[in-house]
């Protein structure tokens, strides 16, 4: 028995170290006293400029930045909230449920509008619409679809072009993909028709936006549905190959959110980080960092940002999720 306990104690850090991260990077001097551990769904290249400016401004703090997929972040963090200081994710629903479950701690004196925070614990710092990305080559000579309905028509018109060349999130794996899907389904029936059309054309399912954009830019796929526009916009090298379309029928805009773990090892440094992050991102004119600001592109409220509130937990209910995934699979996986 004692050996087993010792073994577990010995293995535990090994497991943590063994955790596979999509990306992992340390910012700032490694010998600092305060080491912030941030688990995030935001790709390092998007967030690095901000973190670098943060550690240069607060040299006593160093940041270890770990990247994983939104749903994985939820699992990893819930398993051991004491290991991380800050959780950043675009899956607002998962983030809100973490706060609701009491795993986040409030941060005082964060200058943020009420609609962009929840319980002074969850803080939004970007407003990002989901976009339809198309490969310009595939739509050469054809007008690009501006709404979901037009996309359906475009796909139906040329099935030979799009067979096996459409990509979207695998909502069973991706937290943010699931959030987009559920919000779309809530907004309009068009979503299900689109899924059925895409299912019939053998849609490719992705875990992450990065791979989708890569495949889109090299022409492996022609259309990517529900991708965060910010990723595509930030990748200069793919700009020419890809057109970003914000569907004009109804936009789905999420807010990237950050919170401090209830058991954060460095709560004060974490609070400083959150305050700085919100302050920088609240400036609609900010252009130093690749992430879109909270108030960018006019009023975010007009863009129908998903409301932060307990309703976000609806689709996370086990029964509801089971039912939704069943319907989604019926529509998307047809072979």
């Amino acid at each position: 028995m004692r050996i087993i306990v010792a073994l577990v104690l010995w293995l535990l850090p090994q497991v943590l170290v063994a955790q596979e991260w999509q990306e992992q990077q340390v910012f700032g001097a490694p010998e600092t006293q305060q080491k912030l551990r941030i688990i995030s769904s935001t790709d390092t290249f998007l967030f690095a400029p901000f973190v670098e400016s943060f550690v240069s401004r607060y040299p006593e703090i160093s940041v270890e930045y770990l990247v994983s997929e939104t749903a994985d972040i939820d699992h990893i963090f819930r398993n051991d909230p004491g290991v991380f200081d800050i959780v950043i994710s675009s899956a607002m629903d998962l983030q809100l449920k973490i706060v609701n479950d009491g795993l986040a701690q409030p941060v005082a004196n964060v200058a943020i509008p009420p609609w962009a925070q929840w319980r002074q614990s969850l803080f939004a710092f970007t407003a990002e619409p989901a976009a339809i990305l198309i490969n310009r080559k595939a739509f050469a000579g054809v007008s690009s679809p501006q709404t979901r309905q037009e996309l359906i028509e475009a796909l139906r018109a040329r099935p030979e072009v799009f067979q096996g060349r459409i990509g979207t999130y695998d909502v069973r794996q991706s937290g943010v993909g699931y959030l987009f899907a559920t919000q779309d389904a809530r907004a309009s029936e068009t979503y299900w028709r689109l899924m059925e059309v895409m299912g019939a054309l053998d849609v490719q399912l992705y875990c992450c936006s990065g791979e989708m954009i890569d495949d889109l830019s090299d022409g492996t796929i022609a259309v990517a549905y529900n991708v965060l526009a910010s990723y595509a916009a930030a990748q200069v090298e793919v700009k020419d190959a890809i057109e970003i379309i914000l569907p004009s029928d109804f936009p789905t805009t999420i807010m990237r959110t950050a919170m401090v773990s209830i058991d954060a090892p460095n709560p004060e440094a974490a609070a400083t980080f959150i305050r700085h992050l919100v302050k920088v991102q609240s400036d609609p004119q900010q252009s130093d960092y690749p992430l879109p600001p909270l108030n960018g592109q006019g009023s975010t409220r007009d863009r129908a940002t998903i409301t932060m509130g307990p309703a976000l937990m609806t689709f996370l209910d086990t029964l509801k999720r089971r039912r939704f995934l069943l319907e989604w699979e019926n529509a998307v996986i047809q072979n």
Partner: protein
Amino acid sequence: MTHSLSISGSLRNRLVLTLTGGAAVLALVLFFAIRNYTTQIAQQGQDSILNAAVTSILDAASIRDNIIEVDIPYASFSMLSTQSDDLVFYAIYQDDTFLSGYPELPLTNVTGRASIFQTALYRGETVRLVTAGRVLIGTQKRTQIRVVLAQSQGELADTLRQISRTAALFGAAFFALLVALSYWATSTTIGQLKRLTTSVTRRGPQDLRPFVKPVPTEMAPLVTSLNSLMGRLDHSLSQSEDFIAEAAHRVRTPLATVRSYAEVTLQRVDKEENRQSLRAMIRAIDESSRAAGQLLDHAMITLRSDHLERQDIDLVTLVHEIVLRLTPIAEMKDLELCLHGDSNVAYSGDPVLIQNAVRNLIDNAIKYAPSEGRVDIAISASPRIGISVCDSGHGFPSAEVDTLAVRFKRGTNADGTVGSGLGLTIAIDVAKAHGGDLVLSNRPEGGACALLLL
């Protein structure tokens, strides 16, 4: 004469204390009543929203292929969104099997469609819990779906804080109003008493008329008693005055008779010791007669000064007449009466009273002045109208100048002089009735001086 009253408490303080205390109690009662009532309403508000949410969840429950599906509507949780970002917990049970949500939420047995509300502590938060159930009938069996929905009470606490503030404000305003009101009421009540006190204090010593000004009902018995007391006092005073006047009058006539007999007898008696006795007798009779006269004068003055009848008179003429009348008496003592001053001093007053006063003053002077001396009588019109009578006797004893005017009081140096002590009192009463005063002093060259200021 003045007893020190024993004071026990203050009506004003008692009133203010009672009213303020009452106001404080009322304000507190108001505060708690408002708070309790609105708390109930606020709680009912939360309960009805929770009930609507739980009902909408239950309505979304169905059996499909013998599997329970609960398609929670987005609105169910959406309606639980609050300004205070309250936490939401829920749990769904099929019979006693946990289906989804938060398994640690306390589950209550429910029968029928009634929802059960309770307040509990969950994960360190005070939450309002609603439990509701619904029976679904499938092809094979009946099954009960139960939903527990809980919401933290941040919004309610905020509302309560606001309500408490408002209620406290109301209570304080109510209290302030009541205090102001009680202060006003007390002042008005005490004011009536004060007014009565003032009108009693302002009265002259002789004014024993009843109070006729309107008074509040509660004070009527007091004023009635006061009036009747004054009535009795007035009655008994006038009775005694009447009695004195009557007595003096009755005594004077027989005294005159006795005196004339004594004088006749004196003429007939030759033996020196007998004459001595008779002279003493005559002196005694004179004194009694004079006293009776003065008592009569005083009674008359008391009567007349109550209803002063002013006439335009010339003081010089008036005094001159008195001097003429008294000259024979003065001559008996070899005294000279000298009248000085202005030839004409007009004054509006009661001639009978002034005559009386001046006669008594000159009478006193004649009495106290040594033989072969003189009495100076001066009438002046400025700076104040006054009549001074000065003699060349031993003067007033300096220690008694102030107390001499009290009735029946005589100077300690008056031994061997006929007098009742009423003379100065009469002069003072007359002066006071005319709004003046009597000033007693001693002349530096010797002799007393009485100045009747009118």
